[in-house]
């Protein structure tokens, strides 16, 4: 493992959303925005498909990637720490939660890995504000776009098929911005009723939204322009041997895999996984307990995704997880964990340097914590920047993450 000891990072909490209550003020693309649309001629995209998996609610990275060597972990969690005897993997310092067993072969093969003590540059323990900042990813600037939309811009995206938020009926904020993208609830559901030979429903809709500006016109245009292309993806099916779980995450990753296989131009996809906000009864590492069950579902979906695409295709797919914050180091009186700070990021992909925990371990002693929480020693944006640079061919990461220098951790292989 490559984790070293050190400490860093500011602890002052920043308030960037003074008027968050106004909920949805539509803010324009001001002159001070970073330009992300690069000028190079758009050839076929040959970089990795970058998949962002957001673990909503505050993922407890300390339960997933357990610092078994740190006695303070066991002291802080008398009832819900994962015992050393249950941990998976042969790393003497960090062990995998037993519910991640389906991913152990990938871990051993180096295609599943983690970065620990990662997170946002400053603590933010509000779900809603922390998520907003996580997805804007440009603290201290007036940038209002989602960072994944800026990635699409940097990679030269030209059609909504280049970037997709899969699995929801609502737009993904991380993909919001001027570059084209599509919010796709499901491939099979993306069909317009009433369309027939003498019933030109799509054309009629195109006409009825002609000249309508703003959000309404834009949404309708993206919809009508994508209806035809999506038929291509409908044909792609999972490998017959692959069983995806029937969870929302399983269904969404199944569709991401179909988009990859059908070669519709996907550069990046984002997918969500919910229910990680475990204030109460996070539980021991046993079936029927919240963390165990959620990790079981997560591992099943990720393992199916990797198996479905197969080793060759996975060589050009990189998936990473993010969450708005980690959870408090010490358990509360209801065997749960309140909102915290530093966290683990998980990585899956054929070209990652997995089977190990990257990063700098800050320790869990009282003096190492930030208000009771794991310190952040690695900015999540720097990790993602390293991946985008090495795997996706993004040349100007500063256009995505202002003032961020990519990590040199070697989390992925160079192309």
């Amino acid at each position, binding site marked *: 493992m490559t984790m070293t000891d050190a400490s860093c990072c500011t602890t002052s909490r920043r308030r960037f959303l003074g008027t968050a209550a106004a909920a*949805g003020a539509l803010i324009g693309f001001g002159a001070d925005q970073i330009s992300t649309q690069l000028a190079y001629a758009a050839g076929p995209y040959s970089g990795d498909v970058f998949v962002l998996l957001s673990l909503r609610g505050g993922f407890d990275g300390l339960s997933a990637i357990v610092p078994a060597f740190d006695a303070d972990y066991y002291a802080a969690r008398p009832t819900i720490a994962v015992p050393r005897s249950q941990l998976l993997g042969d790393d003497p310092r960090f062990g995998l939660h037993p519910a991640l067993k389906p991913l152990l072969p990938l871990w051993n093969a180096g295609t599943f890995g983690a970065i620990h003590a990662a997170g946002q540059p400053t603590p933010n323990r509000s779900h809603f504000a922390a998520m907003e900042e996580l997805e804007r990813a440009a603290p201290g600037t007036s940038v209002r776009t989602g960072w994944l939309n800026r990635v699409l811009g940097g990679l030269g995206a030209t059609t909504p098929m280049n970037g997709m938020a899969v699995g929801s009926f609502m737009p993904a904020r991380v993909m919001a911005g001027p570059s084209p993208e599509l919010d796709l609830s499901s491939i099979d559901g993306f069909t317009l009723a009433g369309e027939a030979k003498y019933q030109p429903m799509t054309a009629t809709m195109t006409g009825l939204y002609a000249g309508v500006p703003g959000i309404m016109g834009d949404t309708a245009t993206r919809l009508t322009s994508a209806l035809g292309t999506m038929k291509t993806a409908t044909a792609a099916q999972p490998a017959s041997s692959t069983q995806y779980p029937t969870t929302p995450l399983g269904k969404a990753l199944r569709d991401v895999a179909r988009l990859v296989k059908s070669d519709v131009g996907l550069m990046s996809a984002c997918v969500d996984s919910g229910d990680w906000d475990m204030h109460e009864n996070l539980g021991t590492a046993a079936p029927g307990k919240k963390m165990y069950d959620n990790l079981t579902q997560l591992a099943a979906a990720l393992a199916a995704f990797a198996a479905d695409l197969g080793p060759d295709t996975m060589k050009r797919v990189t998936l990473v997880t993010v969450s708005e914050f980690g959870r408090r180091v010490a358990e509360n009186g209801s065997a749960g964990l309140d909102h915290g700070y530093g966290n683990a990021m998980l990585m899956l992909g054929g070209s990652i340097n997995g089977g190990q925990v990257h990063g700098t371990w800050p320790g869990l002693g009282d003096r190492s914590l930030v208000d009771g929480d794991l310190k952040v020693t690695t900015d999540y944006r720097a990790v993602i920047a390293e991946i985008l640079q090495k795997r996706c061919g993004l040349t100007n990461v500063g256009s995505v993450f202002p003032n961020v220098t990519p990590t040199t951790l070697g989390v992925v292989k160079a192309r």
Partner: protein
Amino acid sequence: MTLSPATSRITRRRVVGGTAAVGAALVVPAVVSSSAASAAAAIELVPADADLHLLRRATYGLTAASVAEIRRIGRSAWLDRQLDPASIRDDRGADIATRFPLAGASNDTLKARVKAGTLKQYAWDAMYQTGYAAMSRAIWSERQLFEVMVDFWSNHLNVTCPSSDVWDSRPDYDRTVIRAYAFGRFADMLKASAKHPAMLTYLDNRFSTKTAPNENYGRELLELHTVGLVYSESDVKNAARLLTGLTVDWNTGNYKYAATTHATGPVSIMGFSHPNATTADGEPGSLQLLDYLALHPATARRIATKLCVRFVSDTPPDTLVTRLAKVYLDNGSAIVPVLRALFTSTEFAASRGQKARTPYEDLVASVRALALTPDASGTKGMEALYYYASNAGQGPMAWATPDGYPDVESAWSSPSGLLTRWNAHLNLAAGYWPTELTRPASLFTELIGPLPATYGALVDTLAQRLFGQNLSTAHRATATAYFSKTPADPLKSTDSAVGWAFPYLVACLLNSPYFGIR
């Protein structure tokens, strides 16, 4: 409680072609396609009609009856009547309550049913019935503004329905907290929510202990229910401590105050302080805190803002927010005076065209526009509508996180969401699904009346009925082109546009941007 994927979608800031203002949908230049001269015509998506503007905002959508009523008695009398729901005879509302007997059922009622063997322990039936009833009332209750506000408060003090652990308390919460105070004082609603088993369970306060208080409710009480994101971590910790002891009796499932689990010691929260000296201080101290927070200027401003976002604009004018916050405080958090001030304001009058329908509002408005009524008997069709809303991502009261559904257009501007709405319009208009609702004897007669002379006149008549506005010249031609006709082409009673294909034209107009505006 749990946080689900949907939380990321709160406030999408889509950047669209530099047209930042949502209200720009109102009057815009439209480029006439294939015209080299690109002559600009104005697209007016909503009519300059104050009656219809009020109906679109204060109800779930136009019906022939509601338009006739407001024309007859005027806006002022119409608003007075809606703000006094008990004065409105509501046979449909009463019928809905009869059809869904478990909607709003008390914990004791459900326990008795379980004991009698007519309901399974932990069954979600009562939560679902509460949801079915909510959508049915939104569609068919005469007390429209009241139902709109029930939806508003259900989101503001969200307890996800259905969700696990509140099977026996969430229906009661709807009746005794949300509906009971929807036109009352917010301070009373807030206190009722704080002591309700549904909220105590959903945000974990029932599990909080004095040794290591659970911060979940304390934080969301400040951030979501009252002052907003102006609190400190110390405020959260102090609130969590003061609130320990407010819990649920494991035997009865009802609220109780447990002094033995209360954390004593002085607390300070957002300018409120309490010595909290004894274990008996938790309950009265908490209620004092809740009163303090409900009447905090930051809360007044937040609720005024949310009401304006609901009824006026996604980016409401600061003047109106400031004025409504003052009305709120002057009236001790009573909501009716705030609503009256809002709907009679010049800012409201000027906000025509500035709100778009969410998927739920779209579905409810569609059923109203199509003059569909409840099943002849039973509830299958009504239940199907609820699942339609769920499939569109907005089942009533079902938002998974404590912040409630977002109420701005940008949060719902998804191609997949729009597609679901379009498909629903056709299914509803043609009666493909659900099949159990009662339909007009003839949809054509209901929506059009006597046969119009031309295809253009057909489109005009339908557009007037559905949204009180004619389509632009180009859009009108697009609509008739669906039948390979021009607006001037004569319409014959034997044409498919009058027969089997008429619902397709209805769907096209319901799909159009004209219907999407609230």
